């Protein structure tokens, strides 16, 4: 099942195409990484942008700059991947988004892209009554001192892969296995913890696709 067509009531930019959203359900990290690389190749060949939404099986990933010492206890597989950032955890209860976007069509500005991703996640959090914020120098979205969503991007010829991970359910126990993004002493939070309610994954996917599409100027999510 693909997400619905442009949400009614949201006025899309006149003539703007809808964004293709692929909802993958729960998948192993490796399989989706291979899919991302295929999708990136497709966008490099001129295909339109797309957004992959997935919930991963438990895994710890290290960005290129990641320090293996920030993995404190590995009860789950640890992978090194071609994205920026340090170490992070993915697993059930977290919505992972992989926008495969051609940044050459968007002014070729990596920092602006990271800030745009933050804007999407702040917008999603707001829809669940959570006030997410940016912290200068610390890419991601924060609620107070705790990290709500992590961002890490890999770019090849201006086509981006990897993306963001939004904590939906309370994952503090799982994050106990790592020092998130190498920032010792900072905690993680989630939509569940910050709002006092645990939204369904489908609900968060819906909202994320919608906010993403409007933030990046698409005529809704399809």
């Amino acid at each position, binding site marked *: 099942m693909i997400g619905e067509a442009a949400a009614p009531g949201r006025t899309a930019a006149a003539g703007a195409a809808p964004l293709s959203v692929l909802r993958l359900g729960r998948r192993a990290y490796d399989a989706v990484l291979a899919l991302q690389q*295929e999708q990136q190749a497709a966008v490099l060949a001129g295909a339109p942008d797309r957004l992959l939404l997935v919930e991963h099986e438990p895994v710890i990933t290290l960005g290129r700059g990641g320090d293996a010492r920030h993995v404190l206890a590995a009860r789950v597989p640890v992978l090194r991947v071609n994205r920026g950032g340090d170490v992070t955890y993915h697993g059930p209860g977290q919505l992972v988004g992989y926008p495969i976007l051609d940044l050459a069509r968007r002014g070729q500005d*990596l920092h602006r892209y990271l800030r745009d991703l933050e804007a999407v996640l702040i917008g999603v959090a707001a829809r669940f009554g959570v006030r997410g914020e940016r912290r200068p120098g610390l890419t991601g979205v924060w609620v107070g001192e705790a990290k709500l969503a992590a961002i890490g991007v890999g770019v090849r010829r201006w086509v981006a892969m990897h993306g963001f991970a939004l904590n939906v359910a309370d994952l503090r126990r799982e994050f106990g296995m790592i020092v998130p993004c190498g920032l010792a002493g900072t905690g993680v939070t989630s939509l569940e913890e910050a709002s006092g309610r645990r939204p369904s994954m489908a609900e968060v996917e819906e909202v994320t696709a919608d906010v993403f599409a409007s933030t990046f100027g698409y005529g809704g999510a399809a």
Partner: protein
Amino acid sequence: MRVEIVMPKLSDTMEEGTILKWLKAVGDTVAAGEPIAEVETDKADMEVEASQGGVLREIKVGEGESAAVGTVIALLEERASTVAAGPPVGSPEALAGARAASGGLAAGSAPGPKREEAPPRASPAARKIAEELGIDLRAVKGSGPGGRIVREDVEAAAASTAPATAEGPAAAIAAPARPEVSAPDIGPVPPAAEEPASGIVPAAATPAAARGEDRSRAGAAGAPAAAERVRPVAVSERQELSRMRQSIARRMSESFRDIPHFYVTAEIDMEEAVRLREALQQSELYATPISYTHLVLKATALALRHHPRLNASFGDGAIEVKGEINIGMAVALDEGLIVPVLRRVDELSLEEIAIQARRLVEQAKQGRFASEDLSGGTFTVSNMGMLDIEDFTAVINPPQAAILAVGSIKERPVVRNGAVVPAHTVRVTLSCDHRIIDGVVGGRFLEELKRLLENPIVLVVHDR
């Protein structure tokens, strides 16, 4: 000719980037547009490509190092035949010209080589789905009138197991033979309700063209097929010495190298001391609680009075017996240890010792102390009673002649009147400078210390 590869400006707000990884080594042949390094800025990781083909001659910025935008990061020996059609990101031209090239309007006038071929005949619906799925229409066989490609042909191509063309990876998105990517929820995308504006399609095709070559091969070229599995092993790390650590290292080496240490250990029955401490606490006689450390300090000071050889220094061929009994207390800090000095301890009452010792330790832990608080010690007490240890030996703190190491107070079996009974005891070990202290002198000092602590009422009564 040598070509400079510079740190690309990947954002208006980017000032410097970090080289995460060199994908090519010096001496490697590099094709134009081939990725040669990965650069990180903020939390984005970008491949930098060679602007021209050639041989990599020099790497100027190593992995893990940062460089300002525009800095030369590598030198390439150019080979004229492999000049790229367009400026890739790492070239100086790209710094200036990339933004113009990426504008949508420039598109129509600069179609890429692939787009120059006559487009295959296809229905609008087929084109749309092909674009959505990233299917190359040139690889699809049309079943409509005159070989025209219709929607069903594209869907069939998308569902086919084998990638049909060089752009196969895109086609494989929906291939059912790849179980991990082919669940029902990534089937073909239904046509959108509204037609895209006519300008959209060429604009979307433009950046690929502007980049000068078929980018689809990049997917096959450099990208690793799967993530590399790593074992989170503990990595050794070089830590520079803090000034405190440097000082400890120097003084302890000097001490252990120059001072012939010997050690004497005694086990002291602390039953009376335990009772005394409880009684003092209940009586509220003193303004501050008395700890075992305070009792040991007081007893040590009194014992030192009778054994001045332990309160002395060796130097210049002579023994200097100190006039004051100033006892240093070793205090553990996160990054080392520090020894604040309590002065004229033999002249202090137990209560005064408690007040002053507590203040000194507190200040030491907070890093607030005057240099005189750390100097002038004539003897040191090192207490590890807070840890569950039996006994330990300490290294003499020069120019002092002895140091007392205090273990934990715990219940141990002792023999009393011919019977084994449990009693609180503590083991203390005295380290002595054998140049000026003989074994018997050290032993006598410990004997007196033991007598005082086993009859602790003396420590309360003795006011001066």
